[in-house]
């Protein structure tokens, strides 16, 4: 076993992080840790939302779009999270298939409905924004279509989880599907660059830096942080529920087995 104190600092940090991940593989320890952490996370989320919504309220109107630009403060963070959650699921799927981390499939299963909800909210808020801006609720351009396909893939993963009975087998099948679906993420990100779309091109994550004014960028980033904290809090809570659900299932199976043997 490597003596941690003898390692130089960068490697020591890596080793500590890896050990933390391995420690958290124990569901009981994970449950204990999240029970302590969740109240603070919930508080931080509420605080971030309060600050973000206040900043969004105080932000100036756009010279072209007027007050409707404020839909962006909800639409863009949801869209970012829709893609980020699939990325989280992809990493969790690698954890299941490659590293056999015990809680990786729990993480993937818990994240899927949250990601679907964020994608749905992004589509709905975007649609409501499109009506005054573009004159239509929906258009089949590259960005909207690829995000809709992402939503369908989320539903597909959820359907797969609900069709296979054994949670471990379901986890591995869902992991393969998630890895295949990860190819949609770069397509969504670059769809506005590769195709001539009605959806506006990238204005924040692009070469050359953001092109949004700071007075609108700041509330946007705070709201993005708030939604990210919301996802982390809900994700940990959902993982706790899933662990407890599997324990209940194991107890049922033991009970049924004992009744059969009696």
């Amino acid at each position, binding site marked *: 076993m490597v003596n941690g104190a003898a390692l130089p600092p960068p490697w020591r940090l890596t080793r500590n992080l890896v050990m933390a991940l391995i420690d958290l593989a124990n569901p009981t320890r994970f449950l204990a840790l999240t029970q302590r952490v969740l109240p603070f996370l919930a508080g931080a989320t509420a605080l971030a939302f309060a600050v973000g919504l206040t900043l969004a309220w105080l932000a100036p109107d756009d010279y072209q779009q007027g007050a409707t630009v404020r839909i962006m403060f909800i639409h863009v963070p949801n869209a970012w999270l829709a893609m980020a959650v699939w990325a989280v699921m992809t990493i969790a799927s690698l954890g299941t298939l490659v590293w056999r981390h015990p809680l990786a499939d729990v993480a993937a299963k818990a994240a899927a409905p949250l990601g679907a909800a964020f994608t749905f909210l992004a589509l709905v808020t975007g649609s409501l924004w499109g009506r005054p801006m573009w004159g239509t609720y929906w258009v089949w351009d590259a960005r909207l279509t690829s995000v809709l396909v992402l939503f369908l893939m989320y539903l597909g993963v959820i*359907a*797969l989880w609900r*069709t296979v009975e054994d949670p471990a*087998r379901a986890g*591995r099948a869902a992991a*393969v599907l998630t890895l*295949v679906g990860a190819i949609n993420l770069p397509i969504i990100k670059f769809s506005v660059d590769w195709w001539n779309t009605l959806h506006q091109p990238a204005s924040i994550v692009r070469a050359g830096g953001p092109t949004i004014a700071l007075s609108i960028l700041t509330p946007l980033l705070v709201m993005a942080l708030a939604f990210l904290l919301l996802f982390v809090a809900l994700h940990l809570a959902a993982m706790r529920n899933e662990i407890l659900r599997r324990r209940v299932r194991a107890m049922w199976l033991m009970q049924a087995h004992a009744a059969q043997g009696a």
Partner: protein
Amino acid sequence: MTPLSALLLRDMRLAVRVGGGALMGVLFFLLVVTLTPFAIGPDLALLQRIGPAILWLGALLASLLALDRLFAADHEDGSLDLLLMGSAPLELAVLAKALAHWITTSLPLVIATPLLGLFLNLDAFAIGAVALTLLAGTPALTGIGLIGAALSVALRRGGLLLPVLVLPLTVPVLIFGVAASNAAIIGPAGFGAPFMILCALTLGSLVIGPFAAAAALRHGLE
């Protein structure tokens, strides 16, 4: 005869025999293309404009329906376990099964396209364009369908899970297939780009599909 070519011939023979369901796909294709004018109306000009799209949708759905028998029969009688334990790499074995599936299910669809194109009032050039794009694109549908078939192999009541998993992934193939067909009909200048992308999708899915399907089979049958 190498193991892989033996597997290929075995699958093709089984598909053609009774219970194999090889030509059922063509029948379904015919039914879908026949049903559409009942729904849309007999306006020949309209049918001609959306003809390539109807043919592509019918081919997509027909190849989708035949996918569940790709692994299910082998899973039931245990030959899938033999494949998993065999000396041939599982990815290549899966690719051989996919090739047999394509030859017996999708190739008849491509051959049936000219007849069905007549129902939709497509002229000879349009029929040729659609058939060419189908020939280039149906291997992509098989490759992507492999993944769904492998994921749902052991499910008894899988039902609609296979189409639900596979259809979102086949959207790009459909988009570029129809785009290439329409581009060929309007004026051959724009045909190259979508057709190249369609071929790229086919080549890509013929690599990703077997690897993902092999991973799904290995992990799902443990």
